[in-house]
């Protein structure tokens, strides 16, 4: 079976997950993003690539940063952007996901940016478009359930490449709530595809998938073991809203053991960078002194995110 994300010429048709996406495509996205970073410094912050195209931001789950950066990216490419806060619209009245999509297709949508609380929803939409012969419409997954958040994974790779140049000599630690994190899954897929030799995950066993080693990573039971000598520390947000049951004693307890403080960061290489996908819980997974410190690259991540989303959308929109 063909990779559902690629068309018959091997070009990107939809961006649904980084798991199984060829290394060549990931590198092409990062290469394409580089010149887009400069557009923000121009008098006219716009390129004509998606002029006349309609991009629908279809958010079934709340998000401010991701929706905004997708919106800015699409607008910098001259697309018309329509934001649908589906959580408060037709779905509430009983319309199914695919009926919503069909209605928007009838309004001549060219691209859907989809966030959904259910894993697989963007894939379902992409499959529906293919089954109904609408190959000119593209889907970008902006985060689905616990499954994937590919543009976050890509912007993280862009950030790492920006500061560290190469992937083949890095040790990267992912810290925290991997179990509930679609970001972590996308990061792990991208890091292993790009040839990072050692990816460690650090966190309480209750917040790690049971088969985490099968994802090609090394499990570390303590911060001391996991952070030693790493080049990159990728923090995750503690996802209280996705937790059911008593997985943790308390946020304070979590911070004491797993929170990133200056003391713990000192175990990493002196030039290690600290990343966080946001929104941050200060004093829970990360200490303010680290979040605002000179090793943090958390705000550059946001800026690079716009260029990376522009790259994805311009590659999709070109065929």
């Amino acid at each position, binding site marked *: 079976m063909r990779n559902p994300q690629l068309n018959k010429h091997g070009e990107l048709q939809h961006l649904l997950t980084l798991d199984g996406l060829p290394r060549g495509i990931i590198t092409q996205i990062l290469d*394409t993003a580089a010149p887009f970073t*400069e557009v923000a410094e121009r008098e006219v912050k*716009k390129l004509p690539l998606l002029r006349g195209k309609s991009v629908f931001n279809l958010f079934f789950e709340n998000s401010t940063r991701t929706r905004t950066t997708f919106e800015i990216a699409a607008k910098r490419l001259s697309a018309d952007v329509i934001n649908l806060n589906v959580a408060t619209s037709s779905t509430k009245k009983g319309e199914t996901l695919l009926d919503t999509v069909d209605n928007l297709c009838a309004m001549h949508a060219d691209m859907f940016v989809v966030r959904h609380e259910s894993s697989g929803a963007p894939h379902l939409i992409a499959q529906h478009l293919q089954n109904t012969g609408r190959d000119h419409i593209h889907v970008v997954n902006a985060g689905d359930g616990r499954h994937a958040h590919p543009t976050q994974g890509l912007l993280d790779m862009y950030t790492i490449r920006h500061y560290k140049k190469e992937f083949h000599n890095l040790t990267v630690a992912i810290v925290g709530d991997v179990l509930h994190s679609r970001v972590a899954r996308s990061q792990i897929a991208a890091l292993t595809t790009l040839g990072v030799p050692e990816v460690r995950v650090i966190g309480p066993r209750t917040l790690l998938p049971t088969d985490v080693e099968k994802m090609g990573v090394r499990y570390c039971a303590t911060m001391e073991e996991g952070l030693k000598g790493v080049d990159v520390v990728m923090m995750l947000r503690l996802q209280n809203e996705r937790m059911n049951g008593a997985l943790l004693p308390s946020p304070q307890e979590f911070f004491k053991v797993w929170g990133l403080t200056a003391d713990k960061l000192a175990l990493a290489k002196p030039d290690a960078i600290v990343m966080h996908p946001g929104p941050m819980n200060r004093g829970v997974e990360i200490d303010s002194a680290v979040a605002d410190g000179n090793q943090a690259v958390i705000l550059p991540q946001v800026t690079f995110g716009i260029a990376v989303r522009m790259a994805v959308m311009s590659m999709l929109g070109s065929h």
Partner: protein
Amino acid sequence: MHLPEAEQLIATLADKMRPQVTPETCLVGIHTGGVWLAERLHALLGLSEPLGSIDVSFYRDDYSAKGLHPQPRGSKIPFDVEAAHIVIVDDVLYTGRTTRAALNELFDYGRPARVDLAVLIDRGGRELPIAASFCALTLPTPLPAGQNLQLERDASGALTMRLIHA
């Protein structure tokens, strides 16, 4: 077809531009041949403003037909475009579409006082109302569509013009 030496053409082009430029004139080369050419002209004309470069990938009118260039190099305009005298530099002038794309891109940086176009060779075959301000050689008969002229640079930095049959 006999092609004149590129080095000879560059000297001719610089001679034609010299009376029209001031030290403040800004050159913008179009990737890739135009950038090499602009570097040479910049030295020959003794200009003081830093060189600019444009990759028109993001402004091409055939984007939806041909797709995005797999490795766009981006544009660098290291001077203030507002009220500047700018010369766009390209190796070969053909349909005029690249020049149009470069003009569109340039104007997204500001409003220049004046824009000129300098090319080594005008091969004919224009599809837009665009003409070079400075041109070292205009082919007496337009080059057939299947053929391509291309500036090449060897390891020593010497430039040569090559004819490619598609």
